[in-house]
Structure formats: C-alpha cells, structure tokens
C-alpha cells in the first residue's frame, strides 16, 4: 500500500483556512507572550536554526582553513576560536534543545491527547531563558570569541585563558536552566496529562524517549551548571578547585564536566531514536517489533549514560582502575542501542515500505548511527583509545552519532511532522533529493576523518603535515556538499509555509493521536478529549493517505 500523499489540484480550494493555533491570534505580541506549546516549539525552532547557522559558519571556516597544510584562511588563534564556537554553539545551543524543545514541545501534548504541557508559563519562561543564554553566547562570539574548546578544560579555561571564559560559561549556565525547566515540564506532563485510555504501554515510543531524555535533563544539567559556576568562582575569587596552582585538581573538572556532558550525548540521540521509531513504523506501515524492549532500552540508555563518563579520561591522568570500570560500563551502552537498531530492522521486515523523504532520513540514520556506535567501541577500549584519543577518529565518531544520528533524525522528524506543524506539504521530490545530498555530503566529510585519525592526525590544530592533505581536501569538499544539503530544505520549507499544498489531518495515513486532529491543530489541540482504545502503531486499522489540496 502506498502512503504517498496524492496531490490533486483544486484551484479554488484556497478556501477559508479553519481556525488553528497559527491564525487564532496575530501579531508579535501574540507570539512573544504565547503559552501555547505549539507556538513555543516554533519559537525554539527559529532560535536554534539561527544558532545552527552560526555554528555552521564556524565549521565552514574551519574546513576552508584546512584545505592546505599551513592553513589558508585564519591565524591559529582564530582557528582555536572557530572550533570552540562551533562546538559550544552546536552542542549547547542547537543539539541539546533540537528535538526536545521543538518537536518535543510541539508533539508531546498532541501525542498523549493533552491540551498543553503541565506548566505552560514555565514553558515560555524556558524559551526566554534559552534566548538570554543564546544572546550572551553570541555577544562572547562577536566580541573576542572563546578559545578553550567546547569542553572548557582547565588550565585552558583558568591559568592560560586569553578569552572571556566566564561569560561563555555563564551563557551555558543560563541555557542549562531552560533544559531543566523543559525536562521537568515533560516529566510531569507525561505522568499526569495522558488522555483517558493512554496507558504507559500505549504511548508512542517518541514519548518514552522524550521521558528518558527529560530525566537526563533534570538529573544531569544541574551538574554542568555547578561545574561552570565553580570555574567562575575559582577565577574570580581564587579559591582552589580545579587549578593545581591553587591546590585544585584539573581532573576533578573533567569528572564533573563529563558527568553531564556524556549523558548530554544521549540527550541528543535518545529523542532521535524516538523519532526514528515513529518514522520506521509509519513508512513500513507496521507495528514496532518488540515495543517494550524498545521502550525500556530508552530508559536503560538514560541510566547507563550516567555510569560511563570516565571513558573520556583514559589518558587524562585518571587511575587505571577507574579506567577499567568505566571501560566495561561503556561497553554496556552498546546493548540497549543494538536492541533498538535490531528492532527497527526487524520492523522493516515484511513491511509495506515506502521511501518518502522522512523515511530516507530514517534509513540514513540507522546506517550512520550504527557506524558511529560501533566506532565508539574502539574508543571505549582502554588500549585502542590510547592511540585514537585526541585524533580525528574521535571527531569522526561523534559526528557520526551527533550529525549522522541526531541531525538526520531531527531533519526526518521535521519533514514528517511539517504538514502537521504548518498545514502544508513541502515539495517531496526536492525533499528526497536533499536527504540524499545530506547523506552523501555527510559521509564525504566525515569518513575521511576516521582514516585521518587512525593515521594519527590530531584534532584541534590549524595546521597538519602535508601527507594528510588529500584526505582533508576530500573532507572539506564533502562539507560544502553537506552545506548545500542543509540550505535546500531551509529554502523549500520556508517556501512551503506559503505556497505548499494544503493538507488534511493525516496526509501520510499514519497512526498516532496527533494525526487525528486537524492540520495545523487548533489552539486547544483536540476539539474533544480523545479516548484511546488501542495500542500504538496498530496499522491494521490505519486510515488511507489523504488527498492533498493545493
């Protein structure tokens, strides 16, 4: 059965748009003071897209600089600032809030049949806090930058700091509170606001993964906030915490930093896994294989994520015994991750698969995430990590997880729910083309970096030996393809908001409460409180894809 949304021309059907959350009220004020989770999701979408552009420009300049061994574009000091800006902006101001704050905010109430999140005012406050953090970070970037790397390791951030480390740390400190509020809001919403009949085991898997993510938000984020605050306290008051010259311990900073920042990787990947579960079932029109295993693997990943941080410190002076424990525990994460990958693959088996743009992203995710995950095992091994630590192998590994995984799923999710968000469809052919470009561009950029790292090229240097040039040129060429792949969706998604074909409630004919209400949904989400009587992904009762009006 094809799930492609068929497009028919109805020249006169630009009829009166029904009242929805977008046209219920107009004006800047109605957006800046909105308590509607859907509008807040869009506010986040706009903000993180801007931050993505900033981080992307920094990355582009880095790749341009690395075209030649001696560097073509910037001074080494500026290069340090570029990779620090890229890392900080992309991790804290794009990836962490990407799926949770946009799709999570938009979809959680819709998927569980609620009117809004549990604390709408807190939700809006979280956006304002996030924007404050963003503005402060941008101020730092444009008034001298920061050169510590995104990890803020002392002594780069203490004794040898040349830039405004304190302000940058405060920007992350502030943005962290937005994460905490969002996480708390989601936990309470999922516990308390499910529609009648929406039991825990009828929840879409996206909700399970958002729940696991919210737990990490709440449990982990305060630690990074405290750590960065201590960094500031040490700098301002000269109390010895991390600086050995003052009696502190620099490895203690790394412990506290990674206690949050490793789980933060799962903040990025868990929501992506939730999106992929939705996409795989939707476009193979099949029940997920092993629902409870996929659901509990999210929680298992969230719990184990807090026990593995020491694998970042195998060569940092951490004791061999602690390294041994962290190595063994790190291998454990592979189990629930593999459960998901195998179950998605098993879901595809004998499914009625169609290759719409979101599905292309989902299939890309499975391949790229698997490579990213498996190369993580190399780094979790104590001995191989001694060789690979601090090389481009690490850079390639985490980009396969964060970009090949998290960003691919974010793009897939954005395309899948775009008709629900805007009430209009994007040009499908362009979307498939962009998905393909991104997949090819991504691999061209980052696969050579695995080889570079294996050959010993260290990360975070503006220059490199001449023998590495061809692989670096390949990587930079790939980055330009990748950039084109990101610009195309930006253009057609904005275009579609005004000119895309108008869609009905369920253009893909898929299951889930969000598809039972009109597109875009009314302010109150559902005109009547839905009553859930079946499990998620029951595709035996799925509706046909709807006719799309232009």
């Amino acid at each position: 059965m094809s799930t492609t949304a068929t497009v028919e021309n109805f020249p006169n059907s630009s009829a009166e748009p029904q009242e929805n959350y977008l046209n219920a009220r107009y004006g800047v004020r109605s957006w800046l003071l909105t308590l509607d989770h859907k509008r807040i999701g869009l506010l986040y979408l706009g903000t993180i897209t801007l931050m993505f552009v900033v981080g992307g420009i920094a990355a582009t300049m880095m790749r341009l600089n690395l075209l030649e061994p001696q560097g073509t574009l910037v001074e080494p000091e500026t290069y340090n600032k570029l990779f620090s800006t890229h890392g900080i902006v992309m991790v804290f101001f794009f990836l962490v809030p990407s799926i949770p704050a946009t799709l999570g905010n938009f979809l959680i109430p819709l998927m569980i049949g609620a009117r809004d999140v549990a604390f709408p005012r807190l939700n809006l406050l979280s956006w304002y806090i996030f924007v404050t953090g963003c503005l402060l970070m941008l101020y730092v970037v444009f008034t001298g930058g920061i050169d510590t790397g995104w990890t803020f390791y002392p002594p780069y951030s203490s004794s040898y700091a040349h830039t405004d480390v304190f302000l940058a740390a405060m920007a992350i400190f502030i943005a962290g509170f937005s994460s905490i509020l969002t996480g708390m809001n989601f936990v309470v919403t999922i516990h308390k606001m499910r529609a009648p009949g929406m039991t825990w085991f009828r929840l879409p898997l996206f909700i399970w993964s958002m729940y696991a993510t919210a737990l990490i938000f709440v449990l982990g984020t305060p630690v990074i906030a405290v750590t960065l605050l201590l960094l500031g306290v040490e700098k301002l008051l000269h109390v010895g915490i991390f600086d050995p010259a003052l009696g502190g311990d620099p490895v203690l900073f790394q412990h506290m930093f990674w206690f949050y920042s490793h789980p933060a990787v799962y903040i990025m990947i868990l929501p992506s896994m939730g999106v992929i579960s939705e996409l795989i079932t939707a476009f193979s029109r099949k029940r997920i294989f092993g629902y409870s295993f996929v659901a509990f693997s999210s929680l298992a990943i969230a719990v184990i994520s807090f026990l593995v941080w020491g694998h970042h410190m195998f060569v940092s002076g951490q004791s061999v015994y602690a390294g041994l424990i962290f190595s063994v525990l790190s291998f454990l994460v592979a189990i629930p991750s593999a459960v998901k990958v195998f179950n998605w693959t098993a879901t595809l088996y004998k499914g009625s698969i169609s290759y719409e743009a979101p599905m292309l992203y989902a299939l890309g995710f499975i391949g790229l995430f698997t490579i990213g995950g498996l190369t993580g095992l190399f780094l979790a091994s104590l001995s191989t990590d001694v060789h690979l630590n601090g090389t481009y192998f690490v850079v390639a590994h985490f980009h396969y997880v964060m970009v090949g995984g998290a960003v691919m799923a974010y793009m897939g999710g954005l395309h899948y729910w775009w008709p629900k968000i805007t009430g209009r469809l994007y040009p499908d052919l362009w979307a498939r083309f962009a998905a393909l470009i991104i997949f090819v561009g991504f691999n061209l950029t980052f696969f050579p970096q695995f080889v570079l790292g294996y050959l010993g090229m260290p990360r975070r240097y503006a220059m490199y030996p001449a023998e590495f040039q061809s692989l670096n040129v390949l990587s930079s060429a790939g980055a330009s393809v990748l950039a084109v792949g990101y610009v195309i969706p930006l253009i057609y998604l904005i275009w579609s908001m005004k000119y895309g074909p108008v869609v009905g409630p369920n253009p893909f004919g898929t299951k889930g409460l969000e598809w039972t209400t009109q597109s875009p949904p009314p302010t109150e989400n559902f005109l009547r409180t839905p009553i859930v009587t079946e499990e998620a992904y029951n595709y035996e009762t799925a509706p046909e894809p709807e006719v799309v009006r232009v």
Partner: protein
Amino acid sequence: MASHSQDPAHGHQQVEEHIVPVSTYLSIFVALLIATALTTWIAFQDLGNWNVVVALTIAVCKATLVVLFFMHVKYNKGLTRVVLIGALFWLGIMITFTLSDELTRHWEIYPQAWTGMIVPVMRHLLF
C-alpha cells in the same frame, strides 16, 4: 497530609495542599540562621582533617531542613519521595565513581603486597 483525590465527574485531579503554620517556617528559618552562624564560627577554628567533615555535616543538616519543610517533602509521599531518593542516588553515583579515580590514582598496577604474597607461596608449592 496532602492527598490527591480524583474528581469522578470531571476527571481532574484535585490536590489538597498541606498548610504549614507560619511559626514552623519561622523556627526553621531561625535554625538555618543559627547553623549559618555556626558554619562561620567553625570556619575560623582549625580542626585539622575534621574541617571538611564538620562543615559538610552542618550543610547537610541545613539542606535536610530546607528539603523537608520548605520543599514540603515531609508532607508528601509517593512520587515526590521517589524523585528525592533518585536525585540523592544520582549524586551518590557521581561522588562514588569520582572517588574510584581519586582514591586509586596512586595504586600500582601490581601492588607490592600481591607479589610479596604470591612469590613465597609459589616457591613453597613448587620447590
């Protein structure tokens, strides 16, 4: 005692909040002030290795008062306590695993004591 009751007609949950008398809040506030004064005084006394222990003990007592009374954990059961215990457990994870590094950093790969024991035992068995 807070109680959660289901309103069958509307399906909403009504939460009855426990009203804490102002006098309780004031007593806790005074207790916290006294503890703060104590912390300040202790900071000027040299207790050697006990400096940190005493300071942390007072801090934990203060935090307990805040959590129990100001944050109403004393009057809430169920999920609220699960959340509190979960948070403390997570703090425990961070401290335990960090100490697993700090305390074993100076251990040798093969501690002297093992070889000291193993070599004579092997000699005894083999020769």
